[in-house]
């Protein structure tokens, strides 16, 4: 089959393009000892307690970001589609704005805006700012993903069906809309997850013990460890995302049916 052939062709082109740079990084990371391939750099990374701590911290931050982003974006996308279609360009503009507002500007503006509030006086408060900023960064991806997801279900009828059964807006969102855009949400969540795991500037300037700053610190001072870390973090992030995907699989089957 010709179609199959081209599919495999493009898949292999894509896979090569993606994997060769990773392989090159991997290859380099093994050369910490002269004339010898070794996992020394990996050992150094994994033995560093800060690696584990910061990864764990960012993991939690990522999950919080995804949760909040979903809570903001799903109702918005739903409502724009249901009642305010004319607002779509405006919402789209705001969701794309994070691309062009430099992170440095963003973080210092936030620090100024919330200076002398509890938000800037404690690590916990700063964490709130951090998550808030990350939620903003997740908007471009989350909005698009959810918007696509909502298009694939008949939200008008589902809404009215739920209403006629006595459901209020909250119930409709929580019980009907959310579960049905869950799968679409996942793809947005993947990207958000990866963003948060790698983000550096905001976390560093808000004094957060995140994974991004840790990686960056290592990158500027060490030779082989950064490459090892890149491989490890790539693998870990991929694993985490695959886990998310796996968790979502059940509901995917339910909503979409077997394909």
């Amino acid at each position, binding site marked *: 089959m010709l179609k199959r052939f081209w599919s495999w062709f493009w898949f292999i082109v894509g896979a090569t393009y993606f994997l060769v740079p990773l392989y090159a990084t991997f290859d*380099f990371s093994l*050369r*910490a*000892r*002269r004339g010898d391939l070794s996992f020394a750099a990996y050992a150094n990374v994994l033995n560093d307690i800060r690696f584990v701590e910061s990864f764990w911290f960012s993991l939690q931050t990522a999950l919080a970001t995804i949760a909040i982003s979903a809570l903001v974006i799903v109702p918005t996308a739903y409502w724009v589609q249901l009642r305010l279609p004319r607002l779509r360009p405006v919402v789209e503009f705001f969701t794309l704005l994070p691309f062009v507002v430099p992170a*440095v500007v963003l*973080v*210092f*503006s936030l*620090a*100024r805006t919330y*200076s*002398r509030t509890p938000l*800037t*006086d*404690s*690590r916990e*408060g*700063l964490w709130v700012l951090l998550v808030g900023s990350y939620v903003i960064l997740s908007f471009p991806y989350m909005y698009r993903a959810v918007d696509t997801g909502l298009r694939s279900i008949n939200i008008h009828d589902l809404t009215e069906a739920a209403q006629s059964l006595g459901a209020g807006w909250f119930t409709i969102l929580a019980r009907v809309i959310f579960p049905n855009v869950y799968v679409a949400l996942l793809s947005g969540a993947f990207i958000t997850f990866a963003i948060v795991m790698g983000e550096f*500037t905001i976390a*560093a*300037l*808000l*004094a957060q013990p995140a994974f991004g*700053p840790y990686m*960056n*610190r290592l*990158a*500027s*001072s*060490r*030779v*082989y460890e*950064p*490459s090892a870390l890149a491989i490890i973090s790539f693998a870990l992030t991929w694993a985490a995302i695959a886990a998310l995907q796996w968790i979502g699989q059940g509901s995917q089957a339910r909503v979409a049916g077997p394909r």
Partner: protein
Amino acid sequence: ACGQAAPTAPAATTAPAATTAPAAEATAPAQLPSPPAPGPLTAADAGGIEKLIERARAEGNLSTIALPDDWANYGEMKQKFLEKYPFIKHEDLNPDASSAQEIEAIKANAGSKGPQAPDVIDVGFTWGDTAKKEGLLQPYKVEKWDEIPETLKDPEGFWYADYYGVMAFEVNTQVVQNIPQDWSDLLKPEYKGQVALAGDPTGSGQAINAVWAAALGNGGSLDNPMPGLEFFKKLNEAGNLLPVVAKPATIAKGETPIALRWDYNALANRDQNAGNIDIAVVVPKSGSLAGVYVQAISAYAPRPHAARLWMEFLYSDEGQLIWLKGYATPARFEAMRKAGLIPQDLLDKLPKTDAPVAFPTGGQINAAFDMIKSNWPTVVGATVQ
């Protein structure tokens, strides 16, 4: 202490501010709050070093910014400090921050008490005066204040030089057989695609200094950095200049076999990779330029006593030797060498430079930086495709 903290003064006091007041109020970020009263000027004012330690213990925290572990041996510096004062919880803010970002961090967090507000900064030489004028610093004079050369400190104690280095060629000798010895060597065809800066000359101090140092080696002077730009233009046209930021990893990989970095960074990297990658560090014969960085305490430092304790540690014999171990020449180097406080093996490890080291003044630095930064894109980067 400082009578002319212009930006923090009420808007009505100066005419220009008054004219722009409505727009500024409506749109510009709010004026900075007045800083709290500055802390004690010396350890003695604080009631002695013991008292200072007590107060620092009560504060319990210290936030530093822009101190990379591998930079001037700051990794060891931080570690030793914390070992000595284990009650301090240290916040290592954005180690990669630029000087402008450090200043911005003070401004943005003025009035905030959280760990994101830096207590102390380590900035390029001219930033000391700028920040002082903006009222962002508070004065402090460490115990060994007098041993810091006069030209390298603010008389009122708002800022003080910490260490300096000179521009060097860091060469991966596995890739480069003939090690270049001077600026002019870099133009040789054999170094095609091999020379890299360690940053962007429109922003990075290290990169700007490299250009300036090249000027000194090519007929320029501290007041005339233009030959440096001309040199890099030639280097670029010859295809020798690589538009990539040199990092330890790219040097090791051989992709940027000749990197222009501070000698202390280059030497530290050489040591770190000893036994795996052969690295040579060469201080060019001509054009040895000292890059001086300064320390200061933020006017808004939420932990002013911990900040002072940090300063005392930096300028103690122990702190100064830690810098020296990282090949950065500390401010008290001359005084300590005279006093015989520097172990011979440390001295032996320092690179030998024949060339006289040029120390620019603050004014020269400002002018040169401004000139290089704004002309780089047009003179060297003009070959935009």
